[in-house]
């Protein structure tokens, strides 16, 4: 039982990271009906910028305020990069075929990967030691470190914030309107271009926070990490129903837990394979995902 509870905690931690990244995929898909394949790389960029800040000002990063400020700063930079990506790689192709957009996204993704590799070198980079204290609590025999608690709390807070924003504010309502039908939304006086920019700002922002959390947790980052986490988060988005914001959150947490239980009770070497089995299974059995939009809404 203890081991099972521990696995659930393990799964929730990694799952909440997937969920944060998945939000980026789902929001872009919701409004533009395209998959931003460069999103994983923006996540990776966040991890690297956080690393740079932490290495340059290690003493400041050791304080909680410093760490939060750096996370915020690095994520804002990534969010601006997200805006740039939209401007350069997606906006010129807005009216062209979906294939063109996919190719363009892959191009951006390869560009970012190579840029980071050239700037930082091909090897692993390691976050400085002791940025987050090693404190841990035992709850019913389950080890919960401060870092795990911080990951869970940060992700849940960000997700709650986003949910509130989308469901309760006027701008959020405009976003939902644009997601249902861009042309009609435009007729209603909504600046759809601004909404798209907003989406490309918020998604990378959340992704970058997730990147830094991963960096702080595992301490080891690599320029190829965007691909693995990106694919997992994309799977999570599909699992929950792509385009659906609560779906991405549920999908992320669920994927984390399923994967962890699979690794714990079957074999750890099968962890990745399991995630993709889930992806294929969902695509075959329920292509709209668990919380997928009803088709009627789109007609």
């Amino acid at each position, binding site marked *: 039982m203890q*081991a099972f509870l*521990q*696995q659930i905690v*393990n*799964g929730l*931690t*990694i799952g909440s990271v997937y969920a944060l990244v998945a939000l980026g995929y789902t929001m872009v898909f919701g409004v533009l009906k395209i998959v931003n394949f460069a999103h994983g790389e923006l996540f990776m960029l966040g991890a690297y910028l956080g690393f740079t800040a932490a290495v340059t000002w290690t003493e400041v990063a050791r304080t909680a305020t410093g760490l939060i400020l750096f996370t915020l700063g690095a994520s804002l930079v990534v969010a601006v990069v997200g805006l740039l990506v939209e401007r350069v790689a997606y906006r010129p192709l807005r009216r062209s075929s979906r294939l063109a957009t996919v190719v363009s996204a892959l191009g951006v993704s390869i560009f970012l990967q190579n840029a980071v590799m050239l700037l930082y070198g*091909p*090897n*692993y980079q*390691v976050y400085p*030691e*002791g940025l987050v204290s*090693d404190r*841990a609590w*035992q709850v019913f025999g389950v*080890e919960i*470190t401060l*870092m795990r608690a911080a990951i869970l709390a940060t992700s849940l807070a960000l997700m709650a914030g986003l949910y509130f924003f989308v469901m309760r504010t006027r701008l959020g309502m405009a976003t939902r309107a644009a997601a249902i039908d861009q042309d009609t939304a435009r007729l209603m006086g909504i600046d759809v271009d601004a909404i798209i920019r907003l989406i490309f700002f918020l998604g990378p922002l959340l992704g970058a926070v997730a990147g830094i959390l*991963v960096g702080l947790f*595992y*301490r*080891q980052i690599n320029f190829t*990490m965007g691909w*693995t986490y990106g694919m997992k988060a994309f799977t999570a988005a599909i699992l929950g129903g792509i385009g659906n914001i609560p779906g991405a959150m549920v999908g992320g947490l669920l994927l984390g837990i399923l*994967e*962890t*239980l*699979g*690794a*714990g*009770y079957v*074999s*750890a*070497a099968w*962890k*990745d394979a399991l995630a993709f089995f889930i992806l294929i299974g969902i695509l075959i059995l329920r292509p709209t995902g668990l919380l997928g939009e009803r088709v009627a809404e789109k007609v």
Partner: protein
Amino acid sequence: MSKVRRVVTALGLAAAVALAAGCGGGGGSGGQPSGSQAQGGGSGGGEAAGTIRIGVQGPLTGNYAYEGTGFVRAITMLADEINQAGGVNGKKIEILKEDDKGDPKEAALAAQKLVSQKVVAVVGSYSSSATEPAQQIYADAGILHITPSSTATKLSEKGIKTFFRTAFIDDAQGRFAANFLVKELGKQKIALVHDNSTYAKGLAEWTKKYVEENGAQVVFFDALNPKEKDFSPLLTKLKGTQPDAIFFTGYFSEGGLLLKQARDLGIEATFAAGNANNNPEFFKIAGKDLAKQAIIVSEPMPVDLAAQNPDAKKFIDSYKQKYGEEPGSVWIVSAADAFRVIVEAITKTGKTDGKALAEYLHTQLKDFPGLTGPINFNEKGDRTGTIHRAYTFDDNGTLVPFKK
């Protein structure tokens, strides 16, 4: 106008060829011309009278260039010493080097080139994947072939009579690790974690065999996925088996993380890891306090060899004097040993025929005083015995012998 176009086309083609060469090198080498070409041209065809040609094949460019260059340095230095003292059986030794960039394709080319230059014996290559394609080419030509550093078990399973190694196969490391954990440290319940790579899985399986032969128990045996960074599901499962010790047989990039995540989950078992963790990155990733708790099983560091063996000390001192730095890895010393074994065989048999030399090494050579310890070969050409030691990190991230 057409002339200009032709020049441009030629330049373009040249660039393409250079790019292709760069890719072949596995990155890092960037189309650098290999030093061996000049060497091959200079020495010309046909056997020069009165010299014994010995080849060195290794990665002189690319990711493992440090090791390959070290091989060449060590062997050239020893050959010079021998030549100054009058050579072997009245003949001077000539060293021919070939760069295989650590790449299997290049390795075959390098081997063919050395064969065509009529070497009598070859030291190399560094990695098992580069040694394998070269192996058959040397075997077909009947040339004595000794690798100083390739440990894959399958290399010696093919029944090649002229193939030897001064490195130990993973069997020996597994035996050492099992003996150390069970007999020295008194651990009874051992968890083994590998990463499904040929090397790591093999080492884990050997260790399992010897742990059980020692009367202890393997309570956990599973692989992690090195592309993942989250090993907590595996560790949670491992925690349930309550092991006294964990032995990780994969590479340093996961080793440090595994140790850290184990402690985060409250697993207090002794943490040991195989020789692929003998790397400063392990220290960086695990962090100082945790890294100091780890036991690293490894071939001895050159500096520890020097402390125990006057010959090794002499070798390392002259190497440092000549090249301005100590040999950074044990494989360079092992390459020197491979060369010394070849010279010994030539001196004792008075022949340069590969089969005769191999016969001597199989049957006559006993406890040859190598720089890395006594050298004996079994019928497969594998080195018998063990030289592995247990190490741990000190405050500066240097590996020092482990003390209980």
